[in-house]
């Protein structure tokens, strides 16, 4: 039982929740405005790769972070254009983006850095301890030596919840995801709001990718996201398309991963424990937490018929 009182378990939980929570919140932004987004995995890879590449080229992890976000934003803008303007099937499109990004980043890694991987001297984003909070006995581990992006994520969780549910623009974004015709009639620009939702989502997903490559590490590897973009999708649905819910679900998945690691030396098969996060995903999607309902117009392209 001393496993649960081990501070490192909780630090790992938070650390493993970040690369799920950021794309999950990103997906929430996109889907709340009515665009189904399963492209988080690919956009994360873009952010992760270009974050490392620019961090190495410029010698500054912060510039790397910025460029990673820009590249993720660019790719999601392409996705948005095809999904909104061309009214392409959003699931097929999202899948195409994922496959494209996986191929592109692998190809660029080989051509630019060679088969030996990204250079080990690539600058990494700093880790921080929050002075007062880190000395609290139990919760302190959350705030000790965590990547700076962990704190950024905590701020984003709160900010995005406030933005979506307590501001006028947030209300407008949600309205085009529920009933775009009514929103259009009321004088809102449906397309523009959807572009905003998808691109904000893309930038947040890319931030999740940068966290993997520059937050905990300083290197990129082929497919280093390892399906986290898809688990984020589950976290978003589990969290009922809200930022706070997505964060809570991500914490649960992070906990499953951390617990899986900790339990390995207690006679339980590593293969079984590796299933834990995915088992939770299935349970989540099977409606364990009650029905979660997608925004009414989610996935339906809107044609203003001008």
């Amino acid at each position, binding site marked *: 039982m001393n496993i649960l009182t*081990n*501070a*490192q*378990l909780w*630090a*790992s939980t938070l*650390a*493993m929740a970040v*690369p799920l929570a950021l794309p999950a919140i990103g997906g929430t932004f996109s889907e709340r405005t009515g665009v189904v987004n399963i492209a988080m995995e690919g956009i994360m890879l873009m952010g992760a790769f270009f974050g490392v590449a*620019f961090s190495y*080229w410029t010698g500054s992890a912060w510039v790397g972070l910025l460029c990673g976000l820009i590249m993720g934003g660019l790719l999601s803008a392409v996705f948005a254009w095809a999904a909104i303007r061309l009214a392409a099937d959003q699931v097929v499109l999202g899948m195409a983006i994922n*496959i*494209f990004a*996986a*191929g*592109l980043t*692998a*190809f*660029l*890694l*080989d*051509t*630019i*850095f*060679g*088969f*030996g*991987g990204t250079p*080990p001297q690539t600058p990494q984003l700093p*880790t921080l301890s929050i002075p007062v909070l880190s000395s609290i006995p139990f919760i302190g581990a959350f705030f000790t030596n965590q990547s700076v992006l962990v704190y950024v994520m905590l701020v984003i969780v709160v900010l995005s919840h406030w933005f979506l549910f307590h501001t006028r623009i947030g209300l407008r974004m949600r309205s085009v995801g529920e009933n775009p015709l009514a929103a259009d009639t009321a004088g809102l620009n449906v397309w523009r709001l959807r572009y905003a939702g998808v691109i904000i989502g893309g930038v947040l997903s890319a931030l999740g990718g940068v966290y*993997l490559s520059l937050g*905990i*590490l*300083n*290197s990129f*590897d*082929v*497919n*280093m996201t*390892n399906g986290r973009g898809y688990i984020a999708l589950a976290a978003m649905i589990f969290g009922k398309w809200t930022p706070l819910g997505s964060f809570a679900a991500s914490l649960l998945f992070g906990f499953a*991963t*951390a617990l899986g*690691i*900790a339990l*390995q*030396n207690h006679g339980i098969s*590593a*293969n079984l424990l*590796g299933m834990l996060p995915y088992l939770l995903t299935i349970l989540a999607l099977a409606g364990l937490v009650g029905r979660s309902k997608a925004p009414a117009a989610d996935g339906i392209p809107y044609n203003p018929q001008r």
Partner: protein
Amino acid sequence: MRIQMVASAAAVLTFGALLTGCGTAANNDTNNAGNTTGAAPKSNFKVGLVTDTGGLNDHGFNFLSNQGLQQAVKQLGVQGAVVQSQSANDYVPNLQRFARQGYNVVIAVGFLMDDAVKQVAPQYPNTKFLIIDDPIQGIPNVTSAIFNTEQCGYLVGAMAGLLEKQGKLPGLNSKNMLGVVGGQAIPPVTSYIAGFQQGVAKTDPGATVEVKFANSFSDQALGSQIAQQEINDGADILFQVAGGTGVGVINAAKSKHVYAIGVDADQAYLAPDTILTSAVKGVDTSTFDVIKQAVNHQWKSGIQYFDLKNNGVGLGTVNPKVPQDVQKQVDQLAQQIKNGTITVSPNMK
């Protein structure tokens, strides 16, 4: 696979402007899948290499085998070509393609290609096949390279045990504990770990070795978290046998100011202060050797063992922080393994 490559190529054209806009010369000296490699070939001897799904940037045997091939291209003047398998379904067609094109030697990297080689090799008796990490006997045109990695695992384990017992390295804690992070519990991984456990038991019998598996060879973030949990439990020297996942282990050891031991390749370059040494598996030299045998008409079919005795496995760069007396004791153990006084079992406890 092909669509992916076309898409990538198209993307590079568009992104090319952005990249060059950065104004930094990227090193483009590596060769891509499917291209023939190197300078003007001196002979018509052709060698094809088929990777398993790990691909050339697996930080492991695919990467090293390609190194060996490139060395053969430079030194023996053979023509080399590489194709990376995207899925297990590609193994047979990839091997057949090289054989049909009249390649003299085809290299299959990894025990996952066992069935594919057994199927393809008898169809092309004039082509010679080399398979890495998998014992195949009884097919005249197939040779297998098997590495006794438990031996180098033993040596790094013995070194870690000695250092842990002395406790003199800066950063070592008082707890007598070592950590291992494995990729998957499969023989090429567990043989290293088995050797490590026996090596530690020899030099520091009281030590605990905490072994955890990531179940992935490409999840660096997970590797980093596993390492941090082991470090938190008190492990201060971590041996990673986890391919790409291991890069995360080394990174975590570096940021927590403890030590790590590399695997497969000499990984000292990843973190010169952190890496004590690496348990090296000479896939590069063995690939080169077998190509050389074929070029010189000295081809041997059946299993070829690569161990400490013929430098098929060994230690990588040793960190200067490791005291001379420790290095000397490890060298003595290596001698004892070579002359058979010590036998190391490839099976984990």
